[in-house]
């Protein structure tokens, strides 16, 4: 058992513990703090696996997200200090069912995955062998010769002109692969729609001022 494995177990167990605390805590701001620790622990796992960019993005996005959640979702809507949250039996039942379904999904994909292709250690010995953002970008554009290979999305893609123009690709990829680019664009357009919708809902409601017709003197 290497140091990386030990660290992985420590961080993983702490993340799991924090995740349990999110569920069982009734105090809503403490709950958000446990959520923060869970997400930060996930970022730590990413760092341990050598995925620096993903880990930093996780920190950047989710810390900010939890912050906004705490402030606008909790503090500004609470009616009294230190609000408590009590879940009813029905909510518990729904949560447990959804949780078990998700757990089943993860367990199934874990059982049926082909683990023989993975490297032996979670952390490469040489830090220079860790994944780079360049590889991530090339995978996004559909280059299957780099890790992480983009065979998940299932969307037929083609190599962008930008890739050819920069001349960075030494060898042509084995086949025209499915790229992350299209799903990425769809998600960003979707987020834009959500943003516009949120701005529309949150805008200040103007009162209609009905100007009474001026009486002629």
């Amino acid at each position, binding site marked *: 058992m290497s140091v990386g494995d030990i660290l992985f177990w420590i961080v993983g167990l702490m993340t799991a513990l924090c995740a349990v605390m999110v569920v069982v805590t009734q105090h809503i701001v403490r709950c958000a703090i446990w959520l923060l620790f869970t997400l930060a622990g996930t970022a730590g796992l990413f760092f341990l696996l050598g995925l620096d960019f993903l880990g930093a993005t996780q920190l950047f996005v989710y810390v900010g997200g939890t912050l906004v959640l705490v*402030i606008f979702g909790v503090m500004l809507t609470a009616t009294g200090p*230190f609000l408590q949250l009590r879940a009813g039996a029905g909510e518990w039942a729904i949560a447990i069912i959804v949780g078990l379904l998700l757990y089943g999904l993860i367990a199934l994909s874990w059982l049926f995955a082909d683990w023989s292709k993975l490297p032996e250690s979670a952390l490469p010995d040489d830090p220079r062998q860790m994944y780079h*953002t360049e590889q991530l970008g090339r995978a996004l554009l559909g280059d299957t010769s780099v890790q992480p290979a983009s065979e998940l999305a299932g969307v037929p893609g083609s190599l962008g002109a930008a890739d050819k123009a920069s001349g960075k690709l030494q060898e042509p990829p084995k086949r025209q692969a499915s790229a992350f680019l299209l799903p990425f664009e769809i998600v960003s357009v979707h987020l834009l729609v959500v943003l516009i919708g949120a701005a529309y809902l949150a805008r200040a409601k103007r009162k209609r001022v009905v100007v009474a017709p001026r009486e002629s003197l």
Partner: protein
Amino acid sequence: MSIQLIILLIAAIVLVTFVALSAIFFIWLERKVAGRIQDRLGPTRTGGKFGWLQTVADGIKLLAKEDIIPANADQFLFRLGPYLAFTGSFLAYLALPFSRDVVALQMNIALFFMLAVMATEVFGVILAGYGSGSKWALFGGMREAAQVVSYEVPMALCVLIPVLTAGTLNLNVISQQQAGLFWNWYIFHDPFTFLAFWTYFTCATASCKRAPFDLAEAESELVAGFHTEYSGLRWSFFFMAEYGSMFAVSGIATMLFLGGWHTGVIPATISEWIYENLWPVYVVVSVLVFITKCWILVFIMMWVRWTLPRLRIDQVMTTCLKYLLPIACVLLLGASVLPLVWHTVFPGWVKLPFRNPPAYPAAPR
């Protein structure tokens, strides 16, 4: 792996010591600067000349103080606040190179990592504000939240401008690209980077909640803002975090715009020769140069703090959303269009050094 871990541990110890010692130095400097600007002498007696032991005396006082947790406070959050604030500010040092390859953790995305972990510092402040169970503290925390969430946007946009020029997020490489004489520094690269430096520095001052943006404390209206209820060592953790992040944002500014650890007066070939043949000399000198540059920026922050009056909260938000954000957007647009226009209008005539593709060593595999 284990050797790497030991190196990391040593680096962590060195960095903690450095952050704590530089906080001690900065607090003394702050008192002296404030004194001089207000036509006083500042501390003069403790430790003989210049009152240089003043902060140590303060530290002993803080250690000996009673640790009070108000009855109204949420104990867990109240205790957690200072640690979160300090952790956020300290983690940034992991990726900050002090000289060529002198860094705790070689990271390809060091800049992004630093910005990400420094964003977590605000969480400690907000928890302190909320957990104190005091209205002053809560007001301070809310203001801090609004301020940091808004100022992060122009700050990130300004950071992107030199990154566009450098073509990488690796601070080591960015600084190495600015080797040589001082016109190689990215602040003098083009008009957009020049303006981006000042915009970045303003946003960075605000993100460290330094005056004129210290609305989270605002002692004239909020008693002491988010740390009203804190005393003793917990209170001092917030100050370690503040001075730590002041140095860290100055470090980013130095790396991105001011040539990193390069003196700016020694030509690149000579410094390269020193690096090859006299490595210890190179490291010592360049670490000193880097720290001095950061100290100068921190000194400017202090100078600004004791010169300008504090803004009102609506003025703080106006400054960010109506001025700094559009300025940052225009600068980013300009910096991205400039290379295109330059190469179209003057093809092959004058070459600005726009570096693309990135200059870091190609990834194995």
